Every structure is written in C-alpha cells, then in structure tokens.
C-alpha cells in the first residue's frame, strides 16, 4: 500500500513538472510534448488491451483515425467544433471510437493471441482503405487540412493554451484509466489475462468483459484522435496506416505493458527520438532501433520494469550475503 501511494505521488510529481517546465521551453518542444501527450492517450488505450486484458491489438490507429477524421470533416465541411462545440466534438470522437470498437469487437473478441492480432490488423487496414479511397469524404491521399483551431474564450491556436488543454485531457484520461484498472472490473480483466478458463469457471462472462474493455479502449482512441487532428492540423491516411498502430503497440511495450504510465514514457521517448533527435543527427533511426532491441533483450517488462529488476538484484545479493555470513558459522 505504501509503495503504491509513493508511485502515485511520483507520477503526479512528474506530471506537474511537465506542466510547469514544458511551457517555459521553446515552442518546438511545446509542440512535441503536445503531440506526445495526445498520442500517449492512444498508447494507454492499447495498454488497457495489451497489458491488462492480454489482447495485443494491431488496429488501434483505426480509432484515432475515426476521432481525427470526424473532427476534420466536421470542422472543414460544417464549420462545427470551432467554438464551445469543440467539447461536443470531443464527445462525438469518444462515442465514434467506442461505436467503431463495438462493431469491430464483435468480430475480433472471438479470437485471442496471434489470431486477435491478425483480425485487428485486418480491421485497421479496412479503415485505412476507407480513408485512402473515399476521396469525396476524406480527401484521399491528400488528407484534410484544419485551417484553424477552436476558439472559446480560450484561443487554442496559442500553442501553450493548446498544450494545457491536451494536458488536461490526458490527465483526466490517465485518472479514468487508472480507476478503471483498479476497479473490480479491471481486476477481472487481469484475471482473464492470467487465465481465462479459470475466470469462466468462476462464473465471469469473459467475452463480455473483453468486449467492454475493447470498447473502452476504442473510446479513448477516439479522444486521442480528436486531439491529434488539432495538434497536427492535418489528417491523412498516414494517421490510420498500420505503422501508426505498430508505433502505439511498440511504445506500450517499450515503457512496460500493464502499467499505463509506461506507455506515456514510451510515447515521450519515441517522439523525442524520432522528432527531436532527428533534427540534430541524421542517424536517429539507429538509436531508435537499438533502444527497441535492448528493451526486448534485456527488459522484456519494459522501462517500468527497471525498479523491479533492481529490487530483485538487490534481494538476491542480500540473500547471497546472508548465505556467506551463515557459512562460516556453520563450519
């Protein structure tokens, strides 16, 4: 219990530090942090599936796409969502993501493991195909430009203001997801991850639990999409393409699956390397590759697994010491 509250304190402290430090850096870093935070919501939604339910989804970009395209289409075709109605768009984005997940979930939840991976991949590619080919609605390959950000008392075209809005959305999402995974429902998901058969025998409707988790993840994906659309100012099939889903999955694994906050760390690291380091050195891709390889080889539990590993090493060293101390006495 004590260590849990310490962890929460650490996370709150780190977030507060981000909220204070980032707006005082230069505008490019603010932009990057905004992007990383908006994407981190998607990564956490992947983590709900991967880390807590044991369902590796390779189609999570689809929900980001739904939120993003919805925002862009409403804003450019109907001038909707550029004032206070921005918050309505946020709600629509969440509902849109959830609705799509409700449909896809019916198909995907039947399977698990690699089969689940394949089905979500295929469904994600369907959304990509739509975005790419439905020219009249999505602008096809060219995508849709959002020419302005919402204004409602707050002027979101100011990067700092927008950063705070994204930060707030992110913090609320984190809180909600944290509450979710600690709720009895979240515990049942962990149970399914560990041993589904046992949960079934205990009388849980595991299909329904997985289905609901899938829909919740989709909803957060939709939210992430709404924010993403305004962050980048452009929505294109590139946002829905397979690599975006893979990115989200990799970030979750990099930070540590089943920790929520690990995904956030992963998101910041990857964005930092890909978009900041790439402005400094041309060989940033090697760094990214090495980080991935080292993580998989030495930290299968992700970066969040580091404290645990240190503790284990200390404990085993302690045991060895104890054994040494005991040994002379015995002889």
């Amino acid at each position: 219990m004590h260590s849990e509250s310490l962890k929460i304190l650490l996370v709150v402290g780190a977030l507060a530090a981000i909220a204070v430090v980032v707006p005082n850096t230069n505008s490019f870093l603010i932009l990057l942090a905004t992007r990383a935070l908006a994407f981190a919501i998607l990564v956490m939604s992947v983590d709900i599936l991967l880390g807590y339910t044991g369902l590796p989804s390779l189609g999570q970009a689809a929900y980001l796409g739904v939120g993003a395209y919805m925002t862009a289409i409403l804003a450019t075709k109907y001038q909707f969502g550029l004032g206070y109605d921005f918050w309505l768009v946020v709600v629509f984005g969440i509902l849109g993501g959830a609705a799509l997940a409700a449909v896809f979930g019916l198909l995907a939840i039947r399977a698990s493991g690699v089969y689940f991976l394949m089905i979500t991949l295929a469904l994600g590619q369907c959304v990509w195909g739509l975005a790419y080919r439905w020219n009249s609605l999505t602008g096809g390959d060219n995508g849709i430009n959002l020419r302005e950000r919402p204004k409602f008392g707050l002027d979101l075209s100011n990067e700092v203001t927008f950063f705070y809005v994204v930060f707030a959305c992110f913090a609320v999402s984190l809180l909600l997801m944290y509450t979710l995974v600690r709720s009895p429902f979240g515990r049942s998901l962990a149970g399914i991850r560990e041993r589904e058969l046992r949960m079934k025998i205990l009388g849980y409707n595991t299909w329904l639990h997985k289905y609901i988790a899938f829909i919740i993840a989709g909803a957060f994906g939709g939210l992430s999409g709404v924010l993403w659309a305004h962050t980048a100012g452009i929505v294109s099939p590139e946002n829905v393409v397979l690599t975006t889903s893979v990115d989200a999955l990799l970030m979750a694994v990099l930070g540590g699956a089943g920790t929520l906050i690990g995904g956030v760390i992963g998101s910041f690291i990857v964005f930092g390397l890909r978009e900041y380091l790439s402005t400094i050195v041309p060989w940033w891709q090697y760094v990214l590759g090495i980080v991935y390889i080292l993580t998989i080889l030495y930290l299968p539990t992700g970066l969040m697994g580091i404290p645990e590993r240190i503790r284990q090493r200390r404990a085993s060293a302690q045991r060895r010491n104890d054994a040494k101390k005991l040994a002379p006495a015995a002889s």
Partner: protein
Amino acid sequence: MKDTLLRRLGPALLGGCFAFSFTVGAKSEELRIGYLAPTTGIFAQVGKDMVDGFRMYLEERKNKLGGADIKFIVEDEQGKPDTAVTKAKKLILQDKVHMIVGGLLASTGYALAPVSTSEKVLYVNPIAAADDLTQRDFAKYPFHVRTGWTSSQPSHPFGQWACEQGYKRIVAVGADYAFGYEVVGGFQRAFEACGGQIVQKIWPPLGTKDFGPYIPTIRADADAIFSLMVGPMSLQFPKQLSGAGNKKPVIGGGTSYDEFVLPAMGDEVLGHVSALQYSAALDTPKNAAFVKAYRTKYGKVPSYYSESNYTTAQMIEAVMAQNKGKFPGAETFIKQLVALKVDAVRGPVSFDDMRNPVHNIYVKKVEKKQMFGYNKPELWNTVIKTYPNVGQFGQFKKDEFLKTPVYNRDFPPCKFCK
C-alpha cells in the same frame, strides 16, 4: 614635423578607412533557408536528389545567394504530412528561417501550405505538384509559391500530341491516388478535347508490383496505352507489359520514365514517350553543363527533382540580388519572385498570376544512345517535341477550367468506357 607625421599616418589612416569600409561591405545579411525532404524511409532516395540539386547550386555560389550568406538547414520530413508540419514549425519557431523550401509528396504540400499561411512564412515549393495549391485553393495560401509544376501541366499539351499522332482510342493505367488522377485527368481532358477517346481507365493501387491482374484486361481495340507510374511501379509495369507480348505504343506521364527510374530500366522501354518540363537529355549547353557537373559530383544523372531544386536556388538568388542581399519580407519576396523571368536549366521560366511556373513542356522518347560525351550507350529521354511556355491551364481557358472540379477518380467522367 607635422608633414612627416601626416605622411606617416596618412597611408595608415587611408588603409584604416579602406579596411573599415571593407568590413562593412563584407558583413552581409544571413538568409536562413529551412529545407524539408524525406531523408529516411522509402522516399529517402528521391529526397537525396532534391537536397543535392539545391545544395549543388549553393556550393557553386560558395554558399552565397545574391549577396546573402545562406544558412541551409535540412530537416527530415520522413514522407509523412504531419511530420512535415512538425519539422516546418521547428524550422520556423526554433531556427527562425526566412523561408521553407521543399516537401515531396502532394499531401505534404497540402500540409505545409496552411502552415505558411498561419505562420506568415514563405513556402517555396519545388516538387509537390498537387493541382489545387495553385488553382482552386490559390487564395488560401498567400505565402505559397510554386517553382516546380502542377501534376496536370505536362498532360495538357501531351494529350494534344497524342491526337497529332493519330491515336483515336487510348487506355489509361494510373496509380490510384491524387497525383495519378491529376496526371491522367489532364491527359484525358486534352485528348478528348481534340477528338480522342479514353476507352478504359485502370487504377492499380500505389505500390503495385504485380500487374498480372490488370494487363490482360487492357482492351484489345485500343490504339495506345497511357501509363502513370511512380517509383518501383515504373520499373515493373513496362517489363510486365512487354512480357505479356504488348505491341501497342506506350506513352505516359513524366514520372513513368523520369531520370530517377530510367537508369534501372531495360530495353523494354525503348520508344516509349512521355512528357515533362525537364529531360536530362535536353540538348542545350546549359543543361549539358548541369548534367556533367551533377554526374561528376553525385555519380548519377540528375532527375527533375534535382533540376527543380537547382532552379529554385537560382530563383532565390535572383530575388536576393535585386534586394542587395537583404531579405525584403515574405510579401515583397513573393511579388519579386513571380515577376522573374529566369533562364533555367529546363529552359525559360516565368510565372502566371496564380504563382505557378510557365515553362516548356518536352515530349520525350526513350532512346539508347551516347550523350554529352559519355562513352557508354545509355537510356536517355530524347526530346522529340517542345511545347513552349505552357501554363498550368494549357490550351484551356482559366475561368472555365477553374469551374470544373479538380481531377479525381471520376472526373473527367469516362464517357467512352463500357
């Protein structure tokens, strides 16, 4: 005594004056150019051609354009529109660049133009060819100027050329995305305006490697095949077409046979005809010098990606020279840029009133021959006809043209398909 002092100090003072004035003269303005190209990912090679073209001009001018010292900052846009936006903002906010140059894909062009509007920073666009940037969306992007081409620009005269060859019925095979629609659409409009018929349109997805499902469906009663391919598709399509025993003449959009893909092609493309604003085989002293210098430096024949960027640097120099090396502000710069008449590698270039180049369109035939004193027979895009000073609307009236929608999968409609 006084005399000697003066005599002694005089030259020193004089020298001091010179030295002083010299340092004033040498202290020139810095012009910061933010350059965006994909330097990693699948488009990295094209990105290299772009950067090389621009850099070669800079190096020829000892890193000075029109008296200004150039700070040339290249950023990797990774071929993704939203990364391009982030990097553009980095260049504008952090490096405080005077202008953004570059962007490869049409979608990247569409992503960067609004950034230039909102940040009020000049966007000089040498490659991204999306039609509407300088057509229907022209008014939205007052800081955008194109120094390259619109996708459909070479297609308009080329459609007419196809009529002159006596072709009546043509099948179009084009990569299934916006750029493909625009190149094929322009060709169809022009070809049908002079009495031809597009009898079939086939859209293989971007990146198709196996044309097996598409080639047999090409109608047997067509006179010719018009292809619009990009990247690896350009290599595969002619190969598989000739493998399937095709006897029809093949013509195509510029990227089907540009110098970026040509060296990797085989004899199956001999005699194929395409149209573009540049050919490395253009027989002018200026181009000969350019091709030789580029090839010595980078070990390959320049493509239109290289030429367009080389010329863009030349245009920037001309404007900076008018202002004696001082950046005049984005609005004045753009006005002076579009008033230029440049004698470029590709030929004379001027601008229309929508900030798009007016230049020659070359109809080119792939031939195997020796050029510019190279001793090995190679494939070259020999120019067989020049359409001088072609604007983006070609032979059509601007007002009527702009009333029709931008070329897409269904426009112009395929009236003669069945």
